[in-house]
Structure formats: C-alpha cells, structure tokens
C-alpha cells in the first residue's frame, strides 16, 4: 500500500503512463501510419511510381494489391497516398474516390457515392440517365469541364475488391476498367483484396480490360525479424515528452524481448500467424496491464496475454455446463465412438445415459425425460450439437437427428478441468464401451 502511495505522489509517472497508453493505443487500435513502411519497400516504390504517373502525366492505370488479412495492404496504400500528396502539383490536381465493397453493395449505391465524393451532386441533380456507362461518362465528362482546360486525374480505390466482383454483370468494374483502357479522363483503379484467386472471379471482358498488374504482399518474415518487429512496435518514439522515461521503457522492452519465456511465446504466435493484426492484439492485451502501479511490461504479462489469445473457447463453454448436460455430452461421445460418427437423436442419447445409470447403484441422476429434453435443447442453443437437416418442424423433437460439434480430445480435456466432477462420470467417459 505504502509503495503505491509513493508512486502516486510522483505525478509525472501517472502522466507518462497516460502518454504511453495514448501512443500505443493509436498504434495498435486505430492503426496509425508508420513513418516508413517496413519490409515492403519495393512494393511501395512500385505503387508510388505508378500513381505518380497517373497524377502527373495523366496515364491511366489499374492495379490490384493482393495479400492475406492483416498483411498491411491498406497501410501500404495509405503510406503511398501520403507520400504522393506531399507534392504540391499532385495535391492540387488529384481527385480521390474511396469505395468499400462492404458498404457499396450494389452499383447504384456505388455510383451515388462516386457522385458525392467528386462533389458533383449539384451537377447531376435530377437528371435521369439511360445506362450506367452514360452516367459514369457524364461524371467524368463533368470533371473534364470542371477544370481549366485539361482533365484532372481521378484515383479510384476499391477496398474489398472481391465483393465488387459479385455485383450484377460487374458493370462498375467493366466501366472503370474500360475508361482506364480507352483514352478518356485519366484514372487509376486500385483494388485491394485478400483473395488470391480474385482474377478468376472477373468476367472475361472485365479481365481483358484489366492491366494484370498485381502487387503481392506475402509476408516473408523470419522469426528474428518478427521479434525485432515486436520490439520496435513496443518502443516509444523519440519525440516522447519525457526522455528519461522513454529510455527506461525502451530498455525494459529490449530486456523483455530477450527473455527466454517471452521468446517462446512469440515463437508460438509466429508459428500460428505472421500478420500484424494478431501481433497487435497480443501487444494490446499486454499493454492493457500497464498501470501506474506497474509501469512496465513484465514477461508474466506476455504469458497471460498469450494465454488469453490461445484459449479454446469451446472448452471454456463446456466448463460452464451443468452435470446433466455434461453427462449427455459424454453419452453422445460414446454414441459417436460406437456408431462411427452416425447422427443421433435424443432417444438414443437418453438410452445411452440410462445404460450408465443402470450399471450404477445410486440413482442420483434419475431425471425425467422432459428435464433431459431441456438440457438437450440448451446444448443445441449453444450450438454444441447441430441438427443434420434443418426441416425441424416435420419431425418430433426427440427424433430429430443431430451431430456433435465437439472433438474427442476437447471433451476429455474439459472433463479434466470440470470442477468437482463425480468420479463415476469421469470413469464412464474414460471407458471405451459406453
């Protein structure tokens, strides 16, 4: 108690912690852009060149950025745009349209959004156009006229590009690529997607108009690089107000990353996935344990955070079942073993459970059929069991065929952890013959 009092008196510590939280939360949560993208220098250069050619020379381009989730596609694109807009001429000239496949779910909405983002709502007004291409043509025409004499380049960014390929007839994509191919207003189309087979989704006519320029962001990280990245992500920047604190913090982070147990944890995370998001999630969990009373990250925090990341959710849910429900799960497991994964219904499960009760002398678990039905339905609500076919209204509830959505090992593990599990239930679960 007294120790914390002393620390509270040092106001700067509280202040520093607030600052630390602010810096890291911006980095992990709202994905603040780094000064220089790491590990993707060549892709960065390539994309910057390409967009510069559109912005400055009026050359039409199309490109796809492909990479798994959390590989830094949006980060790369935003960095490139930031660097691009540093040039005065480009900043004055370039128009940007950002579309997202999640939001613009059909072409009509997308067209409206394009109109809005180009500030042309007053120009279009209430005019009714025949075809999609006509409207888009008009929009781009308006752009041409809007400026002094030459046309201004437009940059289209299509986030979640693969969802645009599901639109009817892919009209939007066709028209955008068509404009980029023919000598009209200079536009650049940048698609961002996580699907590697995205070109297979495109229609032939759309595909033929696409330039087939792809930028792949496939992570080729080795473990030392990964650990190094964790260290840099957890380090405070040079412009941190309190120098002394920043130095101490960075030193402690360096020590932390060299710790054997932390290295092991990082290795496990590295083996399961290499993407940034997962790393940020882990670091965010570590960071949330930093407080005034404990102003730096300890190896124990990293262990705890990683345990939270890797916990088996279904085992957690099994832990909270009542003993009757657990018995039903064990009966289902036995049915699965005996009949080799054939679906079962409530009657069979009940029968199996009754067999267990017969062998046992005490009748502690002699429940009526409706009580068992209620437990069974609870399991179904938790989606631990699932009906084989969905036509549930047709058959009686006790004869509806179900499948168990649990693994053999999950059940056994949950049984080990179950609080005050009766010994005979445990033995029943272990025994090979139901």
């Amino acid at each position, binding site marked *: 108690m007294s120790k914390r009092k002393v620390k509270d008196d040092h106001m700067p510590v509280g202040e520093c912690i*607030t600052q630390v939280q602010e810096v890291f939360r911006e980095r992990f*949560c709202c994905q603040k852009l780094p000064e220089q993208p790491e590990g993707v220098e060549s892709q960065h250069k390539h994309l910057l060149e390409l967009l510069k050619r559109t912005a400055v020379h009026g050359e039409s381009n199309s490109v796809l950025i492909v990479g798994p989730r959390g590989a830094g596609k949006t980060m790369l694109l935003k960095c490139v745009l930031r660097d691009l807009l540093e040039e005065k001429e480009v900043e004055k000239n370039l128009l940007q349209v950002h579309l997202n496949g999640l*939001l613009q779910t059909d072409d009509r909405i997308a067209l409206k959004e394009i109109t809005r983002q180009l500030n042309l709502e007053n120009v279009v007004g209430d005019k009714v156009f025949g075809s999609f291409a006509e409207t888009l043509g008009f929009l781009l025409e308006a752009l041409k006229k809007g400026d002094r004499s030459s046309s201004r380049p437009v940059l289209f960014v299509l986030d979640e590009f693969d969802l645009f390929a599901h639109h009817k007839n892919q009209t939007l994509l066709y028209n955008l690529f068509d404009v980029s191919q023919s000598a009209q207003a200079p536009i650049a189309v940048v698609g961002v997607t996580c699907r590697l087979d995205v070109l297979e989704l495109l229609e032939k006519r759309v595909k033929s108009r696409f330039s087939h320029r792809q930028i792949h962001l496939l992570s080729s990280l080795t473990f030392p690089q990964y650990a190094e990245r964790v260290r840099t992500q957890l380090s405070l920047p040079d412009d941190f107000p309190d120098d002394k604190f920043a130095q101490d913090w960075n030193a402690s982070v360096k020590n932390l990353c060299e710790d054997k147990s932390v290295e092991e944890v990082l290795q496990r995370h590295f083996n399961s996935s290499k993407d940034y998001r997962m790393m940020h999630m882990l670091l965010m969990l570590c960071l949330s344990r930093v407080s005034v009373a404990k102003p730096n990250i300890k190896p124990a925090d990293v262990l705890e955070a990683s345990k939270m990341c890797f916990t088996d959710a279904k085992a957690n849910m099994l832990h909270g079942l009542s003993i009757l429900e657990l018995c039903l799960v064990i009966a289902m497991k036995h049915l699965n073993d005996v009949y080799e994964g054939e679906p079962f219904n409530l*009657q069979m499960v009940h029968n199996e459970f009754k067999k267990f009760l017969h062998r046992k002398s005490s009748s502690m678990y002699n429940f009526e059929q409706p009580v068992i039905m209620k*437990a069974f339905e609870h399991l179904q609500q*938790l989606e631990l069991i699932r009906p084989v076919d969905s036509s549930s209204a047709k058959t009686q509830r006790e*004869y509806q065929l179900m499948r168990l959505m649990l693994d053999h090992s999950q059940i056994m593990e949950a049984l080990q952890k179950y609080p005050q599990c009766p010994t005979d239930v445990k033995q029943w679960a272990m025994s090979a013959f139901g």
Partner: protein
Amino acid sequence: MTSLLRHQAYEEERLQRVAEKLPCRETQAGTLLSLMGQPQQYSYPSIFIYGHRASGKSHVMQVLLKELELPHATVSCVECVSVALLFEQLLLSFFGCDAASLLPRSPSLSDFVRIYRQQCSQSPAKQTRYIVMEKAELLRDTDANLLPALLRLQELVEDNVTIILLSEIVWDKFRPNTGCFEPLLLHFPDYSKGELQQILSQDKHPSYSAEFYSSYINILLGVFYSVCRDLRELRHLAALNFSKFCEPLADGKVKETDTHKLWRNIEPHLKKAMQTVYLREVSSLQWEQMQQTEEKETGTVRGLSAHTHVELPYYSKFLLIAAYLASYNPARTDKRFFLKHHGKIRKTNFLKKNEKTSNHLLGPKPFPLDRLLAIFYSVVDNRVAPTASIFSQISSLVTLQLLTQVSHDDQLDAPKYKCAVSMDFMCAISRTVSFDIVKYLYDFL
C-alpha cells in the same frame, strides 16, 4: 475487495460503487476497464464477449457504461429486425434525433456510414463511443456484409468508436468465409457454486435472518445445481418456493436453526418443482396459488403436457392406432401381427432384433396409405366401408399434426405418412377404446 477494479482515469469511490454492483465479476470488469482505457484514448475496434446465459455479460457492460458515464448505445439484435432500425437507434443515441431523421427510407450501410461521418465531423468524439450489441449471434443471419462492416466500423467512420458484441456462442461460429477484422475475445466464466450461493443470498427476505435465507439457498442449490446453472432461473425458483420453506416457521413447529427439519419439509416440494415449474408445465402463478390452498396436494393441477389429451372420433382413434403400428413396426412383421392364418414364420428369425434397429429409438418410419388402411381394417372389429369420411379423417389427422405427410410430390396417388405422437399419448388413446397396443408392438415383444 476492490483491488481488482482500479483505473487511474476514474475516481476511487466511483469504482467502489461499480464494484458493489458487480458481485463476483470484479476480474472481468477490471479486464474490460483496462482494455477500454481512459475515455479520451482509442480503444480496440471490436471486443467479443462470450459466456453462458446469465453470466452477467450485459449487466457488467451496462453498469460500467452507466456508472462511468461513457457515451454508449445498447442494441439488442432481437429487436432490430431490419438494419434500418439498428442504424436509427445508433444515430439516435449518439447524435440525437436530427441525425436519425437524415436516414433515407431503406438505408444501406453506405448511407449509415455517410451520415455518421457527417455528424461526426460536426461533433467529434471526445470520448470513446461504445456500441453494445446483445445477442450478437443473430447478426449472422442478417445481411452478410453487416458483421464484417461493424467489426471495422472504427476504420470506416474514422471515429473513436468501439463495438462490443455479446453472445452465448463462440467466435469460431461467427467468422465469415473470407475472413474479417478479428475482435478481441473475452470470456465470462460461469459462476461457481459458491458464487451462485453468494449472489442468490443477497436478495434475502427482510423478516428473516440472512443465515436462514442462505441455508435455504443452500438446499435449493443442492436440488437444482446438477440440472441448472442459470442464475436467473435459480433466482426465480428461489423466489417462488421461499414461502413454502417458511411455512413451518410461521406455524411455530420448528425454529430457524432446525435446518434438518426444514430440509425434510422442503426437499420433496423442490423435487416436484423441478418437474413442474422448472419445465413451465405449471405457470408460476398457478404454482403460487397451489401453495396457498393448503388442502390441495401440489402437482394435482394438470400441467400443460397433460392437456395434450384430445377427444377424437372412434374411427380416428383406430386410424391413429393403425398409423402408430405402421410407423413403429417393420413391414415384414405385419403378417404375423394382423393376419389370422399367417402360415409359418420361424420364431427365431422373427425375433431376431438388436437395439440398433429399434424404432422407438430411431423414430417413426414412413408408410404408404395402403398399409395404413390394411392395418386399420384388421384392428377394427366390425366391418368398415372405405367411405369419404374415413379418408377425410386421415387428412384431418394430418391437419392436427398427429400425422405428417412425408413427401409432397404426389398428393393423391399413394401418399406416405408418418405418425407423430408419443408412446404415452398412444397408450392413453388405445385405453379409451380398450385396445392393447403394447401387444402389437414389435419392439416390446
């Protein structure tokens, strides 16, 4: 006690108040609070909280957000049958009704994000805004884009907003097939027996001592804990049966400390409650009335399932019996059961059966109309003409959902049926026409 709930951004007393309202949930509240961080800082874009029913997910969220006065919107996904309702509610609670009225008639996600950004640029978030979605598993059944879009709402609207999903179902069942922004997963563990006891003992009766109520809860948990761990259900049962528990005390037969006698008195009562009130056979109101009227033995009031007995015409009963026999007996045994001179059927062959093929385990099998009529004629004693009324009775049995028609491909020509009544129901019916159905059932031979 409150050592778990500590945060530099909030005053000590306030957290103390929060902690008092969240018994046995300090650890979870503490973790949540540290993840949420200080109000003006960014928080993780999406947090997914899962745990069993009545493990305090909504309660903890509600108390934290209300007591600490954070801007938030709580939405139940059951209520939001269309996305329009959802969007309206969110805009309403963050920006007032002016913003909500900006939504067009059938808004898309794009409209919502546009209006949100517009409003947000006028009144940017000084504190993290929280969106709490209860029963989030229903989001999977709506538009496929909704869940991925909500998970990355912070990025889409460029505002300090955090979405919190509450669900009973694990995250693995939510993930869309092209992936999405992964939320932080947080588990609310179930209450242990001791914790249940502690929470339930809090709402004690004013006219009795705390130990007395606590011993009552102990007995209640002894009966129900193996079946039910749902706090709400247990609390409901505790409230219903407490008056019965106090009865001997009011009569002056026993003292408060005489736990054994009290237990002897209440235990059979609670056991009965499990078969009636717990299954909602008898409503809570009926149960209370039953307790008040002393002379009536509890359970004599017929429950819901006892009312399933229906009055049927004479031939309908036999039709139903025939249907039951056709559904649960294999066709090869019909000769043996229903023909008078059935020739020789070898007994060993006939009785060769194993558990795997028992129809009372596997459920009813479909049968054609011809077989139903053949059995019907053989079980009815007198001669029945196949009039229109017989056939209309079959179709009215289908309407009553006592029979179900299996395949819909052919209405008139050779329809197939299944019998959809339970064994108990069937025994009751056959008793009214004095027909011994068990004698004709292959499974019970």
